[in-house]
């Protein structure tokens, strides 16, 4: 019990003393997760919208595929990306193994299906709701899509948060393709795993507290936004 309390005390000390190593790890985590989330949104939002509003042969198969990919095991994704970008792999010439770029790619593979599937569900619902009105008004497709995305913006925040949550808490893939190299590819989750195995619980706990704080803060903001939107019947 004393060890645990001591670890907690040390972890708070690390956080409040603005420990340099800690913040380097934190910033890299946010950078990798933020960029992978941004890129996944750039791919996933239009793709999910397309799947929601267009009818074509094989659409159901795509939806099943993306839904299944939502549960991809991170270590498997890490392994596949590793094989692709390792020196002997087809993309070995890029020289990105054990760099944040490889970590971003791995995280994108994990997040994009989440963004696509959830976007597709949300946009399909709103497009059905607006279907008759838009048909009657002869709303052009591009204006309809903008309206769907705009009017579903509060629901879409959930999608973005789900993607961010998956990215920031992920360890299996980034440790394989990033290698957990100090000052280069070390992020919060990989550091927690490493420091725990070394018995250095204070740093692991400090990072755990920060990780939880980020999750709590983003969820809190999101819930506040959704409550406000619900009150105005915007969701």
């Amino acid at each position, binding site marked *: 019990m004393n060890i645990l309390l001591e670890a907690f005390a040390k972890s708070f000390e690390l956080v409040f003393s603005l420990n340099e190593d800690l913040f380097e790890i934190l910033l890299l985590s946010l950078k990798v997760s933020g960029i992978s989330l941004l890129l996944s949104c750039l791919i996933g939002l239009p793709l999910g919208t397309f799947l929601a509003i267009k009818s074509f042969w094989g659409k159901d198969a795509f939806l099943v595929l993306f839904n299944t990919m939502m549960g991809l095991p991170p270590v498997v994704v890490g392994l596949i990306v590793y094989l692709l970008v390792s020196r002997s792999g087809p993309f070995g010439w890029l020289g990105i193994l054990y760099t944040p770029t490889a970590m971003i790619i791995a995280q994108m593979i994990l997040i994009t299906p989440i963004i696509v599937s959830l976007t597709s569900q949300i946009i399909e619902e709103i497009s059905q709701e607006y279907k*008759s009105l838009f048909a009657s*008004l*002869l709303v052009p497709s591009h204006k309809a899509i903008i309206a769907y995305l705009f*009017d579903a913006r509060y629901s879409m925040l959930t999608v973005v948060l789900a993607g961010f949550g998956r990215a920031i808490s992920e360890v299996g893939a980034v440790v394989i393709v990033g290698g957990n190299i100090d000052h280069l590819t070390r992020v919060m989750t990989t550091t927690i795993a490493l420091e725990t195995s070394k018995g250095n619980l204070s740093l692991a706990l400090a990072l755990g507290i920060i990780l939880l704080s980020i999750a709590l803060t983003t969820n809190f903001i999101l819930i506040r936004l959704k409550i406000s939107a619900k009150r*105005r*019947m*915007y969701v």
Partner: protein
Amino acid sequence: MYKSNKKNLMKLTPIEVIDLSVLLGKDLILDKVSCSIKNNSITAVIGPNGAGKSIFLQTINGLTNIDNGKITFNKIYNNDEIRNKQAMVFQTPTLLRRNVKSNMDFVSNVKNKNGEIVIKNILKRVGLEGYDDKPARLLSGGEKQRLSLARALLIEPSVLLLDEPTANLDPFSLKLIEEIILEESNKGATIILTTHDMAQAKRLASDIIFFNKGKILEQTDANAFFRKPLTKEAKKYINGEILL
């Protein structure tokens, strides 16, 4: 008192419906219906539930596929130019997840209609002045329907299609909507509305189309219809009997 002010509306009338049949899945909803809707008339489409009234309106608006027959507007088949001069108000209004003003702005943007002043005036006309920032889906039933009508008015339609526009509404909304229907008619619009309210049909309609089981049983002048309906089904319906 409202003054007649005829607008320069695109002539879409007479609307000729010839042998129109519409299937939804395997169900025949409209069965070879034929009728003619005169210029600047207010036509009340009446009949029991499931008779095909709403689908009839939606088909005129181009929302439903025609399986057989045809509809012409001043001898021209329905096209986007014609549809752009029609406005439809649905029985259950679909309002965007935005505030009142943004709902109006959306239609204004889609239809390239200018003017904050026009929007302001229309909202005033439907009794929604000062509601600009109110979330549309928090409005009462009557207010929602009035906003839906306001969006339709923004289009300045030559043909206004109203699917039970006053069903279950409060007396204030009912009176206001009826006044606007008459005003739009005075301005030159052709209006087709479905209703279950016989008193409303008497108050507003110049013509009646009576539907039963996907067929038009009568199309006639409103006075003649209420004075002396030609079919036993229409007689029963006017007398409030249930048609099976």
